[in-house]
């Protein structure tokens, strides 16, 4: 029994780590701008495509940093062009702009790739197959959770102990007051997007290494799930987003394998098709959380004033 479940748990932890890296971008942006950055998942996809194209002509030690740099630049530009002009507009307008950017990035990717599946390059060492606890997997599966945790610890240190981190905390508590206190809001927001897209770029390398390739819609579903993870953990909370992401990753992976697990266990005789619900499950979880504990696991409560 344990033998059947273990591979799913391990791959779930790995996927969870990848979601966590994307979820941080959502949760930080939401914490500061109160914006669901629908384009974040597509930035993640673009990072994947950049890797495909750059690695084709450049050595990895050049293309990897270049991918990260270009992705960060993209995130920074999106904020500048599509969100900053709408700073005083209603929240719905900004959200629509985010959806527009997502639409644009997907269509751009469709145009450039011709809609074809682009094979993701093999990154030596991390793509290698290894045997852990008697099961064979790629090394990236094992590395991901650890790398995620290291990055998150670094991020939390940054937020708690640097000047820009303090500014971020202040802005997420109260946008207007921070502005009055002389915090340069625009710099803080740019920094948030830079950090968020940096982590998404790292996440994309870990994610796509385990998948056959990148297509224009590759970012949509991981993006939505990462957002759900952020809501689940309590939006605005970084540890919350990370824990939420691991829970969702593991749950999703187990549901994908639920048919097999139950057949081995003898509970059911034939396939039921639970795997169809591996994506939907995330949303069921989301709705349960929103209805019963809208602030998520670690979110703070806010009250409306009349």
């Amino acid at each position: 029994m344990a033998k059947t479940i273990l591979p799913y748990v391990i791959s779930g932890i790995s996927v969870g780590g990848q979601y966590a890296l994307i979820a941080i971008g959502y949760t930080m942006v939401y914490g500061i701008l109160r914006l669901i950055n629908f384009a974040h998942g597509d930035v993640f996809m673009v990072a994947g495509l950049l890797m495909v194209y750059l690695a084709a002509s450049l050595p990895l030690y050049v293309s990897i940093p270049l991918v990260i740099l270009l992705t960060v630049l993209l995130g920074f530009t999106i904020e500048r062009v599509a969100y900053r002009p709408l700073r005083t507009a209603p929240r719905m307008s900004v959200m629509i702009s985010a959806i527009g950017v997502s639409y644009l990035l997907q269509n751009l990717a469709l145009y450039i790739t011709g809609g074809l599946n682009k094979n993701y390059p093999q990154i030596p060492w991390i793509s290698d197959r290894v045997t852990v606890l008697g099961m064979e997997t790629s090394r990236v599966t094992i590395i991901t959770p650890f790398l995620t945790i290291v990055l998150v610890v670094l991020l939390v240190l940054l937020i708690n102990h640097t000047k820009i981190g303090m500014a971020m905390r202040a802005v997420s508590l109260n946008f207007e007051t921070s502005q009055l206190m002389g915090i340069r809001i625009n710099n803080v927001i740019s920094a948030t997007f830079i950090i968020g897209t940096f982590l998404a770029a790292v996440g994309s390398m870990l994610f796509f290494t385990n998948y056959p390739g990148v297509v224009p819609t590759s970012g949509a579903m991981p993006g939505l799930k990462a957002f759900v993870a952020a809501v689940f953990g309590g939006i605005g909370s970084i540890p919350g987003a990370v824990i939420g992401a691991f829970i969702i990753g593991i749950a999703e992976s187990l549901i994908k394998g639920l048919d097999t697990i139950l057949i081995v266990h003898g509970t059911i005789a034939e396939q039921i098709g639970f795997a169809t619900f591996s994506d939907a499950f995330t949303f069921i979880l989301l709705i349960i959380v929103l209805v019963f504990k809208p602030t998520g696991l670690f979110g703070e409560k806010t009250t409306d004033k009349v």
Partner: protein
Amino acid sequence: MKKQNELPNSKQSSWVSFLLVLAFLALVFYLDQIIKPTNKMYMLMTVLQKGSVYALAAVSMNLLNGYTGLFSLGHAGFMLIGAYTYAIFTIPSSARDTVYQYFDAAIRFSFPEAFSNVMGPAGTALGVLVAVILAGLLAAFFAYLIGLPVLRLKSDYLAIATLGFAEIIRAVFQWQKLGPITNGSNLLKSFARTSKFKLEVGDTKLVLSTFVPVLIATVSIIIIVKLVNSTYGRAFKAIRDDEVAAEAMGINLARHKMISFTVSSFFAGVSGAMMAMVLSIAQASNFKSAMTYEILLMVVLGGIGSTSGSVIGSFLFVAASEWWLRGLDSGTFLGINAPGVFRNGFRLVVFSIIIMIVVLFFRKGIMGEREISDLFRSRKKKAKGAAQ
């Protein structure tokens, strides 16, 4: 003074708009007879067909997002329910086994067939109508169930929860265990579709391929407009402008949000059914959140809070992406021949850039919150002012 108190649709102007609508429908009917699928101009008919599907979808989304201020992204899910309901209940029994090739079809009932057995050809039309209404009702029913928990949520949480529901619905319809009903992840086909809609009068066959979807959309949109202009529509706008004030003035928020949500979903279901009959197929995997986004962008293009804007927005969207910008995909555009740049997908890139420009710089869209009738009214006013 007395005159101002009169209803905005005074008798005269409602007669004028009624005649205009009739004239438009007559024109579409006439075009249906003269433009054959082989004609170069058939693109116009395609745009009219698909445009009316999206126009209804956009207008119904606008009822929710624009008039009631509920930012919901579940439209594709309700359209899916509508499309499947319509398709399942109009597949003729002779075609069932071919369509459900991997499953033993559980539903073997077809409205057009059942009614035509009793009433003849008129029964077929009635059957299609009943299936369309049922499509709307089922979508509305699901919306009611979903609305109970999620309509309490605030703006962006509501958006993400409804988006999630659409994804859940899509998964459920693709589930192989429901195959006998939904055909699993395989597509549904062979049901009553617009390309087959004909009216036989004596020896002449009158084509109705474009007329029927345009008619359904027109009637539905008129109903939505009437709702928006009614006392309920005004209550919706009050909720959009200020929820707290609306509640303090005696408007029951839960009830009115639910009305708006179910009515919007009813028409989303109808537009889903229309989509099935226009495209001749229904497949759950087509109803992704990207479809909702597209409809939302049509609403934005036309102007959030304007019904005529949504209609114009969707026809422009469809015409641009299906017709006018075609050249961008196939080598030559506006006489410029550049196959290297103008290849597959370029159209959508240009198109999304146009959309971004509208979103960023023309936030009010084409119509803002005005309607076409407002444009005439303000011109009249101006003319009056000039005369004095």
